[in-house]
């Protein structure tokens, strides 16, 4: 319990520091939203007028405190340019990106874990190096190229097996569930295959290390076959490591899937963030970055908790100290 409280306090402190850093960093960027809105031919007076309308002529401290004040009340602010509440903008983007990541991770885990374990268990050297090669190739595929290949194979209208939509997300969102799901299949495969390959390499090395450890000897001494020992004991022991890796993967995918979102014209978080930054929609960008940072930290927090749950040794260690 004390662990959770300490972690939580750390979480809050980190968020505060992050908010200051984000705010400051964005003010240093050249360019601002009013000049983007005013365009190439606007007289300077018009830019100045827009700036005061957007409240960007107030002192920085005032701007910062009004932003934080909003955050504390759960109000992420209103975008300078689109005039929409940032919370709902981000929610709409999340409804594309998160399902994409989850689907991608499912594919990644299915591929990575399966092949990773198979690579360890196989006794034939040829097969083993085959898996090794597979991992290297899979990890080396650029997302853009892999996605294009999938479009060429399965994209409706373009593909050899033209069955899946390759462009865009239905305007009605998840209300038209089938179309929405179908439009995420190819992007999720692209993401999944690539991260699956790196998960495979992690699994192989983590499980490979355990295989040489006393745990496995012990299990085999109790009568397990090598295979059974690897699956029942080895996997269980590698779990904390793999959870960390998958957690990190999840976090990095939030922005990492941007290339894939772009290729498949999906209105997700990554593309949205880049557009907002390009437009210098500072209020939107700072709230979005803040949410992302909070989310990264939260994932880290969750991974820590999961570790404790999966690895009883950590719990005992704390108890002994206490």
């Amino acid at each position, binding site marked *: 319990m004390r662990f959770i409280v300490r972690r939580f306090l750390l979480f809050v402190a980190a968020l505060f520091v992050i908010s200051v850093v984000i705010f400051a960093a964005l003010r240093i960027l050249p360019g*601002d939203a009013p000049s983007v809105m*005013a365009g190439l031919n606007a007289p300077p007076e018009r830019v100045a007028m827009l700036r005061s309308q957007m409240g960007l002529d107030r002192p920085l401290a005032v701007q910062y405190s009004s932003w934080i004040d909003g955050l504390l009340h759960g109000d992420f602010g209103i975008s300078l340019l689109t005039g929409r509440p940032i919370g709902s903008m981000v929610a709409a983007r999340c409804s594309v990106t998160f399902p994409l990541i989850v689907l991608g991770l499912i594919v990644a885990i299915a591929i990575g874990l399966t092949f990773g374990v198979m690579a360890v268990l196989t006794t034939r050297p040829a097969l083993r190096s085959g898996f090794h090669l597979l991992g290297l190739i899979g990890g080396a595929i650029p997302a853009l190229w892999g996605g294009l290949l999938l479009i060429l194979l399965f994209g*409706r209208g373009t593909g050899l097996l033209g069955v899946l939509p390759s462009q865009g997300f239905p305007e009605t969102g998840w209300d038209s569930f089938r179309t929405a799901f179908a439009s995420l299949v190819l992007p999720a495969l692209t993401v999944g295959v690539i991260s699956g390959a790196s998960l495979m390499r992690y699994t192989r090395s983590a499980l490979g290390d355990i295989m040489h450890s006393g745990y496995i000897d012990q299990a085999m001494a109790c*009568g397990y076959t090598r295979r059974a020992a690897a699956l029942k004991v080895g996997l269980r022991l590698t779990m904390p490591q793999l959870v960390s890796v998958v957690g990190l993967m999840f976090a990095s995918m939030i922005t990492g899937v941007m290339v894939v979102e772009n290729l498949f014209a999906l209105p997700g978080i990554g593309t949205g963030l880049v557009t907002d930054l390009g*437009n210098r*929609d500072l209020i939107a960008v700072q709230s979005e970055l803040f949410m992302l940072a909070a989310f990264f930290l939260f994932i880290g927090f969750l991974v820590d908790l999961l570790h404790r749950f999966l690895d009883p040794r950590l719990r005992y260690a704390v108890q002994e100290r206490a």
Partner: protein
Amino acid sequence: MPTNSGAYDENDATRQTADPADGIGHVVTSPTANGSRDVPDAQNAASTDETLNAHVKKRAVGGKRAANGLTKKGWIWAIAAMVVVVALISVFLVIRQKAEIVTDRAHQADSVSIGLKLAPTNLDIRNQSGTSLDQVLVGNVYEGIVARDSHNNVVPGLAKSWEKSADGTIYTFHLNDNMTFSNGDKLDAEDVAWSINELMVNHYHSSELLMNFKSAIAADTDTVKIELTAPYSDLLWVLACRPGLVLDRNAEYDIKTQAVGSGPYTVAKFVPNDSITLKANPHYWGGGKAITQTVVLRYFADDNAAVNALKSGDVQVLAPVSENLAGPFEKDNEHYRVAAGDGTDKFVLAMNSKGAATSDIRVRRAIRHAIDHKQLIASRGGADKPLGGPIASLDPGYEDLTGLYPHDVDEARELMKEAGYTTENPLELRLTYANTYGTELGDQLRSQLKPIGINLKVNMVEFSTWLQDVLKNKDYDLSLVDHNESHDFSQWTDDQYYYNYSNEKVKNYYRQAMAASDDSQRDALLSKAARQVSEDAPADWLFNYRITTAMKTGVTGFPLNLNQTLLPLRDVTYVPAQR
């Protein structure tokens, strides 16, 4: 031990006796229960040979079953299951797709999807810059007192006719009868006068174009008088753009996310950076109602994504299609039509007239001679037109000025020598431009300027940074940007503009042109001014970008000219090919 397990591995008959739960419980807990780790071993040691053997057998069988189930057949099953799932999804989608095609066959489609590139950030026609907003809203959702056709000429809009007073300062507009907004409100002279006055009071976008403005008054319900302080020959054209748009003074709506206008379409849905859905306005006052009921404008930041969308039938029109990706559509002329239209996009390579080295006119002239425009255009696909001056062919005062600075590397080298630079002692210049235009242009310019003794450093930045560094702070040597505005010559008469260019002769010509009483007089003066600007070489006009549009055969009524600024959708139809 290994030999034992090997032997059990081959024995299938013992399966029924296995109790996997037992096996798991012991082995998994044993390594973690630190102190009690030796317990099972101790038990084993205490047993007789027979019991030990039995124990081992039991466990090993349990382990073996799990291993066998999960490794060989399990994998096969898992893979088979995955294949089946994929196959099911595929079949399901094929069936669904077929169903869609069948509905499409019903003669003329009641929905057309159009793929575009630049998405508007919001719908605020009063404040948000960018032609992507004009493209969607002007003429489709909002209408002006007058309008423009695809040749950039002024045609009647909400006003069916107008006259100008003898001294050119009072314009009287006669409005059409029985006009309404899409929400049912009546549109009369009060709305027109109110819209224009609001624009001027609040300095909305493009209000600076409405020069010499004094007042706009509703004389009666269908007559509007606009009074100027002095004649302004460009007034009608300006009123065909944003300054002339008429908004509903009684309607309350969020102008950033909604639009209430009098045009043939209404905005049904707006998803920023993704799509805008337009529906035909059932209350449209005019005779020419929208033919296609639903038009979906979809935005593709990625050129490849856009091309795939056209191929897969997600969109029926793509404007613009990247020249280098249009090839397959051009070849397949049975299913697609590819054509380029004129526009007013000028790719301007500005040379800072107050820059350290570029203030020397010999350097600027040398650069203009050194640039091989034909090569630049050819490498972009060949659709663009060379442009020798600040006015594009669809704008008044256009004249072919490409002869002023022909491609001549020797001449350029000579000029550079006079200015004191050679290839051994090169001049360092920095080219700042937005990354949206791609790296090729910068690379080509660098290699074209190298032989005349210019070492070009290419500095690619984000557009917002360009706005700050170049447009606002004028901190640049060379800059490249696409000036896509029309009737925008006034840039060259503004000392404060980022060109840092100032020539009294040009300003005089322009002043006279704007005060001219008829168009031919205006055009003659403008072309004189343009020639002067081009001679002074404050910039090089790399080319006049022409928009290439690709569409499915069966699409009609889609404008090719100016379609990135002005895209009237009223007459667009799509008749899918019969199979």
